């Protein structure tokens, strides 16, 4: 269900919608009209709220409303019936939640373009009518990403790599496929990743500093324009601009034959840069921009982007005022407790120290030391967004052994470094997704995944690039295990509440 809003009518509409759904014995997620079908020609409003389990998400469209009929973001441009919006749903913070994926399967099965054989199934070779052929999408929210091997430069030239890759385990069959795998005429490595949100790009494209300290050089240069870029696009930074991303996505995800026109690219990127998405209300705590707090997407829309929280507006200080929520007699006890919890979570995010070790992009190659004592906001350092102001390619270990949780459903690759060994893993590495190394060809980049926006999280489970955390609590628990933090139950709850409020 989508709910066009004005400030005055918002609460009434939400309450009325919830009551109507409850009376019908439905939850909001049961209604098909949350789903934007390709080419259906709706009008996208300037402000739309989408209920979710934690409250509601708000999507803002600057200079909206906008007629989407004929708009290349919303039209099925390619041969498989998908549009960009298929995997970047407004109700899911412009990403794609597991709930939405399953709902579409229940409604239309493999006939829905979302489940296109090319990347909406585990491998195009598989019988497409079977559920198990789409299990990575249906069970983990993962889209197949096929990367050329060896990696290619922007002009298509192969990059000289300092590692070799072989397949250890291939549950999808795609990496050993004669047509799609490493031994195919055009060798490919298939990895499986979550779609990233197409929103809040002012921040994702922002350049806070001219330098990428993780690579000890200036920010990456777009080969087409010669201009510096943020280096924060895509999990593996395989493209540097929205224009290049649109072309790449059209060729692959939409199976568009040919080349997008400059006009279509301009319309797509213009739209993408006008969309802001963030949680707006909490089911328990009420409006996230009430009681002195400044949560919600309007703050994102109106704030300068790319600023370092430690030198300006502290990360998640939007919720500082709620530290005193206990004194607000107008709130229910539940609201007070929840708001105080969010404020504690924000403080914890900024101040709770733990030892970070054996993590490329943090402990190497910069000189921070291994280990280094710091906090969540060390890397999640951008005001209002919690991304990394510097290009955020970091190896948390979510995709690479021994830190990754067991993931029997994913392929496993053995990487053998032929030059310098990896600074933390050594010469031989086992990984489900080499990440940034599939772009650079460098062993030291194995497992690095670009940090992403922390906004709209409640609308787009599961989490991490490989969907390995089904809930926000599982995200916190992964960090707790990975870095032996020792969070208390109260700390976990506070951090979960904070993330639900983003």
């Amino acid at each position: 269900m989508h709910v066009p809003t004005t400030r005055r009518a918002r609460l009434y509409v939400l309450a009325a919608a919830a009551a109507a759904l409850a009376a019908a014995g439905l939850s909001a997620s049961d209604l098909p009209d949350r789903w934007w079908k390709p080419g259906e020609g709706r009008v996208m409003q300037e402000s739309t709220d989408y209920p979710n389990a934690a409250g509601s998400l708000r999507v803002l469209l600057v200079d909206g409303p906008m007629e989407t009929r004929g708009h290349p973001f919303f039209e099925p441009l390619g041969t498989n019936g998908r549009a960009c919006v298929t995997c970047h749903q407004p109700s899911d913070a412009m990403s794609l939640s597991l709930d939405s994926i399953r709902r579409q399967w229940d409604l239309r099965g493999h006939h829905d373009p979302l489940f296109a054989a090319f990347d909406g199934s585990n491998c195009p070779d598989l019988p497409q009518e079977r559920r198990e052929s789409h299990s990575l999408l249906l069970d983990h929210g993962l889209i197949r990403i096929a990367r050329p091997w060896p990696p290619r430069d922007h002009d298509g030239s192969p990059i000289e790599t300092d590692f070799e890759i072989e397949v250890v385990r291939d549950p999808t069959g795609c990496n050993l496929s004669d047509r799609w795998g490493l031994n195919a005429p055009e060798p490919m490595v298939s990895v499986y990743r979550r779609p990233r949100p197409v929103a809040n790009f002012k921040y994702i494209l922002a350049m806070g500093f001219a330098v990428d300290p993780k690579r000890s050089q200036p920010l990456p240069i777009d080969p087409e324009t010669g201009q510096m870029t943020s280096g924060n696009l895509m999990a593996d930074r395989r493209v540097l601009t929205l224009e290049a991303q649109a072309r790449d996505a059209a060729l692959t995800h939409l199976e568009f034959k040919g080349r997008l026109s400059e006009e279509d690219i301009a319309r797509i990127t213009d739209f993408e840069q006008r969309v802001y998405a963030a949680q707006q209300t909490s089911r328990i705590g009420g409006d996230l921009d009430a009681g002195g707090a400044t949560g919600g997407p309007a703050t994102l829309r109106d704030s300068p982007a790319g600023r370092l929280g430690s030198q300006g507006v502290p990360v998640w200080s939007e919720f500082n005022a709620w530290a005193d929520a206990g004194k607000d007699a107008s709130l229910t006890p539940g609201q007070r407790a929840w708001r105080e919890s969010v404020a504690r979570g924000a403080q914890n995010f900024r101040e709770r120290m733990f030892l970070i070790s054996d993590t490329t992009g943090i402990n190497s190659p910069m000189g921070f030391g291994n280990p280094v004592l710091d906090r969540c906001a060390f890397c999640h350092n951008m005001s209002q967004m919690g991304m990394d102001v510097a290009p955020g390619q970091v190896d948390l270990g979510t995709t690479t052994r021994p830190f990754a949780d067991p993931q029997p459903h994913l392929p496993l690759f053995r990487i053998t470094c032929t030059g310098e060994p990896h600074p933390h893993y050594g010469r031989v590495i086992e990984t489900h997704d080499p990440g940034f190394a599939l772009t650079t060809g460098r062993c030291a980049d194995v497992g690095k995944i670009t940090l992403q926006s922390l906004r709209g999280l409640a609308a787009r489970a599961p989490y991490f690039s490989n969907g390995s955390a089904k809930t926000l609590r599982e995200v916190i628990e992964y960090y707790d295990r990975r870095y032996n933090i020792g969070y208390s139950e109260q700390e976990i709850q506070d951090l979960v509440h904070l993330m639900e409020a983003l």
Partner: protein
Amino acid sequence: MSAFAPLRALAAALALGLALPACATPAAPAAPAAPETSPELRFVTCPVYRNTDAGRKSGCWLADSPEDGLRYDVTRSPTKPDWNRAVLVEGRVSAGQADTCGGIVLEPVRVSVLAQACPRAMLPAQGYPGVRFQLPARNIRPIHEPREQPARPYAERTFGVWFDHGRDFIVYQLSDYFTHMASLYALDIDASRVEITGWSVTTPETVSGHVLVEDAMLARRRADAVANWLRMMGVPAERIVVKVAHDGSTSTLEGSDGLLSPSRRRVEVRVIP
């Protein structure tokens, strides 16, 4: 210390005609004090991490010298150790710095992480407070901050870029600062020529029983890394000349901080108006 000591220091400063800073943030990077009388120590050892907590980046790094048997605090090095690897320590004993980590404070100090494996060693805080993090003065500023333009007439300037042993990585919050300053200066004055010379130390040296020697190609890779930085910042490639040298003399350019041995591993960027 007497309660009047700060006042005496203030009076002494005023008597010397020293201006007091308007705020705590230094306007220009200042090199750490390097007492002339303190010898430059150089040794290889396995590092020890002390798990102190005075906020972010406040853990202590200790290194025991095989030469004199003493424990040194190397926390102030721009490059911190990796607890899995041996380190080359090069530094001078700091005069008058309190022991907050459980070691004799070295400052200035440089740490190079070596390939040799070490067992992880971590000590509890044991009452030591650690070193509270302060943003180093040599940090690259955000793009959105206004920047002063150099005054005319433009002068030829030479910048030193300093490297850890065996590496061509431009050291964070030390060498990146000077590389960036060089690139901005070259752009600001529309430099007619930029000469970049790289050095490596290719004659073997024995330190704490370890033979240290750098690859002859490292000088080139260091110079190329700096040249690439300038090109990516927009300095025209045709105005950049890259040269290579080996086993050069020491340098006292800004950023060497009076440490002679590390200064041999450098790149010099000569910016000519």
